[in-house]
């Protein structure tokens, strides 16, 4: 396991209060919890009275159709978005109502993999990975940092790419570099926003294996947002399904596979709904009138 050696790299004082995982004043178990979370954008309710608890050391996968609020939910877990109403807890401490500077200290204990990687395109891979270290640690020994970056990149199978810029990397490589950056501060919780979207099946499986490896080797709590069911079945200890702003299913992969709710079955089997089919039928057959004539160019 790679660790930042505190003797040589002085990590800034981070208040670590209430480390135990016992039920606290909130009565909520687990490392992360949301209670009655509602989020509106204008009149649009994206999350409606959601309550859930994320258990320590487990992988929780949030599934649901595009636009159902998965990304909005995961961004609330690290308070990149503030709830319209409801509460967010990290280790029994409420974090949705604290100031940004205090929140920044909490965020150093999280790693977040964004959908597109969100690498800084003006910095190369090495500088991207040391970004959080630079911000929160006093670097006294650069050779040690180089070793650390090498180790982080080796974990994601990209050692040797230190001098590459994000523009010169493929989509899968960018996500792996972003993952190396997300684990730079040895986080306790890693949040993944659609980690396999846009990747071919083999690259997607590489990311799945990485998620499993990080959980196994670092013992981190993992929350993954995805609509890739192959990925969800492979990595999940628990699957939560969002639909129409609410949780409609919550349980193990086996439980979700056999869930009686028709929407769950339709989603996990990737079937088009009768309503969608009806709309397609109503639109009629594809006639010649729907195409431009071959000689439309003068």
């Amino acid at each position, binding site marked *: 396991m790679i660790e930042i050696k505190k003797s040589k790299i002085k990590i800034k004082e981070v208040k670590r209060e209430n480390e135990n995982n016992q039920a606290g004043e909130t009565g909520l178990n687990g490392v992360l919890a949301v209670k009655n979370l509602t989020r509106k954008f204008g009149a649009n309710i994206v999350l409606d009275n959601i309550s859930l608890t994320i258990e320590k050391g487990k992988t929780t996968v949030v599934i649901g159709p595009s636009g159902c609020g998965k990304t909005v939910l995961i*961004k609330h877990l*690290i308070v*990149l978005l503030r709830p319209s109403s409801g509460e967010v807890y990290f280790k029994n401490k409420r974090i949705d109502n604290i100031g*940004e*500077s205090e929140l*920044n*200290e*909490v*965020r*150093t204990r*999280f790693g*977040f993999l*964004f*959908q*597109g990687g*969100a*690498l*800084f*395109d003006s910095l190369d891979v090495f500088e991207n990975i040391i*970004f*959080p270290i*630079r*911000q*929160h640690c006093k670097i006294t020994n650069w050779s040690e940092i180089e070793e650390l970056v090498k180790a982080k990149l080796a974990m994601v199978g990209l050692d040797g790419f230190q001098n590459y810029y994000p523009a010169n990397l493929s989509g899968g490589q960018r996500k792996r570099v972003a993952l190396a*950056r997300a684990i730079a*501060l040895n986080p306790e919780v890693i949040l993944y926003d659609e980690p396999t979207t846009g990747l071919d099946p083999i690259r997607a499986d590489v990311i799945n294996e990485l998620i499993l490896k990080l959980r196994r080797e670092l013992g981190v709590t993992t929350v993954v947002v995805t609509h890739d069911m192959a990925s969800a079945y492979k990595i999940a200890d628990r699957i939560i399904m969002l639909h129409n702003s609410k949780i409609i299913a919550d349980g193990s992969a086996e439980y979700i596979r056999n869930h009686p709710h028709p929407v769950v079955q339709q989603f996990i089997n990737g079937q088009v709904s009768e309503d969608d089919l009806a709309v397609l039928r109503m639109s009629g057959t594809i006639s010649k009138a729907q195409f431009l004539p071959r000689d439309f160019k003068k």
Partner: protein
Amino acid sequence: MLAAIGTKTVAGVGNAGRFARFMWHSIMTSFRSFARGQTYPLIWTQMHLIGVRSVPIVMITGAFVGMILAVQAYDQLAGMGLEEHLGVLINISVVKELGPVLAAVMLAGRVGGALTAELGTMNVTEQIDAVRSMGTDPVLYLVAPRVLACLLLTPFLIIYADLLGILGGYFVGVMQLKINNQAYWSFSASGVELWDVAVGVVKGFFFGGAIAIIGCYKGFTCREGAQGVGQACTEAFVSSFISILALDFALAVIFKGIYNTFYPYRSLVG
């Protein structure tokens, strides 16, 4: 109709409030970042991008302002036999008003637009969220170095614009229109005081701060997509331009008041 006006008013007040909060946070964070060693390399980088690379465009602007003033004013002054006062007119106009304002407008286009485009792209590709997710204040990392670089270098760029404006006026007035060299500089020296130069340079701090804060704010709040970033850049330039003019008016009134308190009235053609 009334509902629409009400909605727009509420939205306008909300936007003004958000901008005021962003501005306050940016100013406070910029001053605090002076005490943070990690910020200095970022400030140097921004100084190069914002300051050094703007020197040619600002110098060209200044030179043409001086030359155009000379061409336009010469006939009027010559008609009254006052052509030797051309230097006073050009130089005081350049150092007090036209140099600072036109240099700032050029910077609003070159620097303000670039800041908005860069931060806007970072915003829509979640790079600003990534900064926040790693426990860093994006205003500290992204805005403070840009504000400080603009604040510190705009006055110097204005000095360059002034210098080239003076030389441009001299080139047309003395070398092309054959005004007596000694008289040109002698009247200029008697008409332009250090106060006038200082007023122009001090304006640079305010213009630079306004350009940087507006550019960064528009980048941070731009909507998604290429159109969103493009629109934010346009809004940044228009807002910066209006702010420069409004600040120039306010500062002209304030500095005139200060001057009149301490010094007697002076005529430029006495």
